[in-house]
């Protein structure tokens, strides 16, 4: 179970990736030791609240960001600048303060002795990094990642880009069936935009492979209070709206009622 806490921490180090991507590192014994792969934090640039009185009177929502890595007392968030909230985060430098609520949600189930495929699309990459580290010593792990173009892809075993600028040309789902067959995959873990997860599920479920996916959703509270992030989960006859921030973000793909999105 998760009991998200609120705290403010200084950014220790900022790592630049391609254009719109960057990593914020925080050095903190507690944060750097709790949190499992697939869990996330709701984070915000403190400035957006503290300057509220003069720069911006209206503080905005926190944004859900996965744990990208935890190592040696550090925790990292890999972030893509897409809108207002992530743009505010993109302006932070070492020493600037971050507000955090978390760790939130439940992580991926962790197996041993399996042949595992990690499947990530776009900003689904960050949680896979941490997950991969946890799995790699006890499983056979393959990692496929896809993005729109070169700037959207990062180190992994098999890269796909929609414009073909690097790796295979096409959507990452195009190569899933073959990969599963070739590597005799037992379990797939996926993370990315809903349409991609839907397409992946289509293929993977037909092949009868176990599949856990981390779902995206717009969030307000991030702690299970508002029911704003709910998605339909259950069997065809008996499903419920479960909270991505509380019961998720990882769900068994079989239980996600894709037809209701």
């Amino acid at each position, binding site marked *: 179970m998760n*009991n*998200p*806490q*609120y705290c403010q921490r200084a950014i220790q180090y900022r790592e630049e990736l391609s254009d719109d991507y960057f990593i914020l590192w925080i050095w903190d014994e507690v944060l750097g030791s709790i949190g499992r792969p697939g869990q996330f934090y709701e984070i915000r640039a403190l400035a957006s*609240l503290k300057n509220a009185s003069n720069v911006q*009177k*209206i*503080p*905005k*929502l*926190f944004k859900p960001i996965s744990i990208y890595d935890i190592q040696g007392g550090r925790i990292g968030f890999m972030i893509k600048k897409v809108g207002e909230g992530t743009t505010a985060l993109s302006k932070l430098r070492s020493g600037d303060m971050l507000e955090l*609520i978390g760790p939130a949600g439940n992580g991926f189930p962790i197996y041993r002795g399996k042949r595992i495929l990690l499947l990530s699309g776009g900003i689904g990459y960050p949680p896979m990094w941490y997950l991969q580290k946890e799995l790699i010593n006890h499983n056979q792990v393959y990692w496929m990642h896809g993005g729109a173009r070169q700037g959207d892809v990062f180190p992994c075993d098999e890269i796909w880009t929609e414009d073909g600028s690097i790796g295979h040309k096409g959507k990452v789902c195009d190569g899933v069936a073959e990969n599963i067959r070739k590597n005799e995959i037992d379990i797939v873990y996926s993370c990315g935009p809903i349409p991609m997860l839907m397409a992946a599920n289509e293929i993977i479920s037909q092949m009868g492979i176990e599949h856990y996916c981390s779902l995206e*959703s*717009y*969030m*307000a*509270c991030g*702690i*299970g*209070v*508002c*029911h*704003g*992030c*709910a*998605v*339909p989960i259950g069997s065809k006859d008996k499903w*419920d*709206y479960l909270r991505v921030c509380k019961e998720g973000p990882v769900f068994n793909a079989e239980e996600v009622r894709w037809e*209701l*999105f």
Partner: protein
Amino acid sequence: MGAILNEIWRRSPNAIDLLTTKLGKLELKTPLSVASGTFDLENLEFFDESCLGAFVCKTITRYPKHGNPPPRLYETEAGLINSIGLQNPGLDNFIAEKLPLYRERLRLPLIVSISGSSISEFEYILSRLETCPGISGYEINISCPNVENEGIAFGVCPDVVFDLLTKISPMTSRELCVKLSPNVTDIAQIAKAAESGGASSLAMINSVWGMAINYRNGKSHIKKGVAGYTGIGIKPIALALTYKAAQAVNIPILAMGGIYNWKDALEFIWAGASAIAIGTANFVNPLAAPELIMGLGEYLLENDLKITDLIGKVSF
């Protein structure tokens, strides 16, 4: 006693009732409550409950409710649009699972928010809850757009409001607070109907009708289309309606709608609110509640005032 109030009292020993206020039959240690659906036990991980005068839970209905399809949320320039659709586990599960948790965890008056699809459903829910200990009052949510009474939404028709209240008010000696909708032509009429029917306080306002559309492709940001608008952008509206209702009735008002900090809270108290609640602000500032109470306490100490000195004392 909680750390926050202790801090205020430490500064001024005779400030013990600085923040005390009454909401109908309830005496509240502080005027601050939380808006239904925006706050739960999880939030109490962030701060000490002693800054709150009462705890209002998410609205409960007779049967479990799925709620509305996603996406359910969108943040606009000045607030939040939500379309939760009263998702809740239903009365039975509430009594069996949630209520014991609240009783165990909370040392605050618990106000249970309920909604029904007919007057008799309200009666049934109330009769069941009356058998449960540990409840200090009810918030009668007649302002949710999903609740229909023969085609007329409850909260917008004074006669229906009056009928409902005359039926349920004799059933309980607990606090009976009626939650009003802002989406009406004449809030004073509805407020009066609730009062004459036997409500002992009013809560207002619920969400304002709102919508947001993706300008690029014309897709509604919310699956259901028209939804509920809350947060700072509705503050002037909530304040006007609170003032109008306060002018119309004698029962106390628990006001909400865009309250983010102690300054906002004071505006509502001047306008006529006996207590206030934080809703959307819980999402944008996890410490909004304790900060509000600290700010309010400091203001009162500095100006040598009690909260009850200010209620409804707006001047022009």
